[in-house]
């Protein structure tokens, strides 16, 4: 019997790295197949080869018994392969219908396309307005655009690259209902995710990659999430432990701060108030674009508030500069690793100097002490297990997870009174994420106050003492983690974003 889709001995090398080394796996029609692996294990290279963005060095693929060697994505699309990208391949200034037409092999006329979008949308519980501009949509709605773009081409094989990393639990439920329905109609789905519990819930089979090779194939339902993680990493690692400690005096008090929206799609902050005590980790949950960046930049001092006040150890910050906030002990690790937290074209010593100059006394009378800065950078690299060829490497040459460890480590080693981190483990593999979470817990245990802004609910539940939810610029009252159910959090995060659930689908997602 010929398999529905088969990958045989596929290899691809980039200069200096064997991205895929004789990778083989196969899928049946209607199968949901997970592709697991850490960052840099070769998952994206593999799917890029299937989708025709990258050409393999050797090996073969067969789809429905026919050889499959797409020269470019349009060939792959015409053969029934569709892909939803991790970083959405959408055009913000264009409408939903225009975005969908761009990804289609032979798009119909505008009027008919609008009808098709509405019809497919209601069929799969993914309503969309074809004439809305994509830049105005929520993240969940944007993903719907990508999915409908794929569905309209009637795909035989659908590739999904980390589709749930930005969704609320409710949106994830709807997505899974859609995927199960598709699979039951015979579409094969190749599903990439870091979220092991989701994979156990959704997928029939899993192929696990490590360093470009297939290390295991298994049925994820039969394994625990921990076993899966250990297969990915190749060794056992410990989940973060939360030390029990009583909280001390308030270190960071935010009193009713408001911020008017800026020129580019800014979300206004509305009377945001919270207090973080010594030893406490406050998790701020919420979907991206609900005011996280605005909140973090008012704390860092990049934006000055219109009203309200921020106090560190009881002292009002007012309009104090970024540098003096750092001197007071309020440190911030922003979300964007490259371009905001670190400069890609500068080496790690220079990057360490950029935020550490004052607190680590890396400069005297305005003259940089590079020897001291190098020692500081090396300390970060050693203490936080940053995998790099040395302190002289450029920040841009590090993988996402390693740079994130460096960025967080750089702030933690400066012994902050208050540390604010935004999306600390976004796009970071399981082992590095666990290390970062542990470091935040240790920091709090050593007597700092931590504010962790994250979209990843599991992460916040794991590390936070209490959680508040940011939704459209308003912050809910922080409550201890134990007092929430996941559904409550999801609803606070903006719930279902006006998706009308049919009874059947809500059963599926429950």
């Amino acid at each position, binding site marked *: 019997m010929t398999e529905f889709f088969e990958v045989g001995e596929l290899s691809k090398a980039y200069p200096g790295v064997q991205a895929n080394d004789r990778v083989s796996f196969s899928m049946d029609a209607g199968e949901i197949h997970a592709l697991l692996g850490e960052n840099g294990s070769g998952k994206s290279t593999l799917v890029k080869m299937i989708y025709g*963005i990258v050409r393999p060095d050797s090996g073969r693929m067969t789809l429905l018994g026919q050889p499959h060697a797409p020269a470019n*994505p349009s060939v792959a699309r015409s053969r029934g392969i569709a892909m939803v990208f991790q970083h959405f391949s*959408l*055009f913000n200034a264009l409408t939903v219908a225009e975005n969908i037409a761009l990804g289609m092999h032979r798009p119909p006329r505008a009027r008919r396309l609008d009808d098709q979008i509405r019809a497919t949308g209601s069929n799969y519980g993914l309503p969309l307005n074809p004439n809305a501009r994509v830049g105005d949509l929520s993240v969940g709605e944007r993903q719907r655009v990508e999915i409908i773009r794929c569905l309209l081409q009637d795909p035989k094989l659908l590739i999904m690259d980390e589709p749930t990393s930005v969704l609320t639990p409710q949106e994830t439920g709807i997505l899974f209902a859609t995927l199960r329905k598709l699979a039951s109609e015979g579409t094969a789905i190749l599903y990439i995710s870091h979220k092991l519990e989701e994979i156990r819930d959704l997928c029939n089979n899993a192929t696990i990659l490590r360093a470009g090779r297939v290390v295991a194939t298994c049925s994820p339902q039969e394994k625990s999430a921990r076993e899966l993680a250990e297969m990915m990493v190749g060794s056992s690692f410990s989940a973060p432990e939360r030390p029990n400690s009583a909280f001390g005096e308030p270190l960071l008090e935010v009193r009713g701060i408001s911020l008017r929206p800026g020129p*580019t799609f800014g979300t206004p902050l509305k009377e945001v108030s919270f207090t973080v005590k010594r030893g406490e980790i406050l998790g701020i949950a919420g979907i991206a674009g609900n005011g996280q960046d605005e909140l973090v930049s008012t704390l860092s001092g990049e934006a000055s508030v219109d009203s309200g006040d921020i106090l560190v150890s009881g002292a009002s910050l007012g309009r104090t500069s970024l540098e003096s906030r750092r001197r007071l002990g309020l440190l911030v690790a922003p979300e964007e690793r490259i371009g905001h937290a670190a400069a890609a074209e500068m080496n790690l010593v220079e990057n360490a100097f950029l935020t550490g100059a004052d607190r680590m006394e890396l400069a005297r009378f305005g003259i940089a002490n590079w020897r001291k800065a190098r020692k500081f950078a090396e300390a970060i690299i050693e203490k936080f297990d940053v995998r790099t060829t040395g302190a002289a490497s450029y920040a841009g040459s590090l993988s996402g997870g390693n740079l994130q460890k460096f960025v967080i480590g750089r702030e933690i080693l400066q012994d902050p009174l208050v540390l604010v981190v935004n999306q600390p483990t976004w796009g970071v593999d399981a082992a590095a994420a666990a290390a970062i979470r542990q470091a935040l817990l240790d920091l709090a245990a050593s007597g700092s106050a931590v504010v962790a802004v994250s979209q990843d609910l599991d992460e916040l539940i794991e590390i936070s003492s209490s959680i508040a939810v940011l939704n459209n610029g308003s912050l809910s009252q922080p409550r201890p983690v134990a007092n929430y159910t996941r559904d409550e959090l999801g609803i606070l995060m903006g719930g279902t974003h006006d998706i009308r659930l049919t009874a059947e689908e809500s059963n599926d997602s429950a």
Partner: protein
Amino acid sequence: MDLSSINPLLLIATMIAASMPIFFAAIGELVAEKSGVLNLGVEGMMIIGAVCGFVAAVETGSPIAGVFAAMLAGAALSLLFGLLTQLLHANQVATGLALTLFGLGLSALIGQSYAGIKPPSFPQIGFGTLSELPVIGALLFGYDALVYASAVLVVAVWWFLGRSRGGLALRAVGENQDAAHALGYRVVAIRMGAIVFGGACAGVGGAYLSLLRVPQWTEGATAGAGWIALALVVFSSWKPFRVVLGAFLFGGVTLLQLNLQAVGAEINPVYLSMAPYLVTIVALAAISGTGRGAHLGAPGSLGKPFHASG
């Protein structure tokens, strides 16, 4: 001061003629920028068009041949820009500035022996008795062929960008080059096309200047019109019909100030000559600064270098 000597009908007609050079240059640059390419060499391409059009018209005796020569010359210069920025990944801003300087220098060299010569005059389109009609005759039927061509061009560009599949691909490339590449669009090829179109339009704009507007060749004849065209694209929020509006405004104020100078208005002529630049920029800044999402016109990948990876 005798304002009655300014004939409003004649003013409108000449205003349209005065706006043509920057209109052509701006509509071409608009298409290039929509595809994500910032070509600061508009001034250079215009003046190369002006001199080549002039030389070709004088040598062949045919102004139409001049316009085509200008188109080719502008396109050739923009092709150079395209090769440098798209294939060799040179910096767009620096290359564009260099292109302007290069164009100004080369045009001076080419035009050296053509100063003071009168080019063959441009044929009027005969509308017969229609142009004899009072008011309407002068307003609608009294122009040269290029004015009518410009009207067709703006509608064509608007239709292409907003309604056609090719235009959608072009906008997509300008909006998010990586996504367009991932979907299988040929970013560099689309951009090269847009750059060359921009160059050809700038060339025509230049030829309009040297063959029709002021029918003679003088060194530096464009006098910054290319820069105004560049500003026009930004302030019109990358919308074709707003480019027309801005070009008319610029042409209108240019003429008005010339007329005011001619009738001896008691305003320092220095201020009057500044007026067209100031009024155009202020008016367009006011338009583009109001209304929600007005800033969204800027293509997301404008001026970013593109390297196909993987």
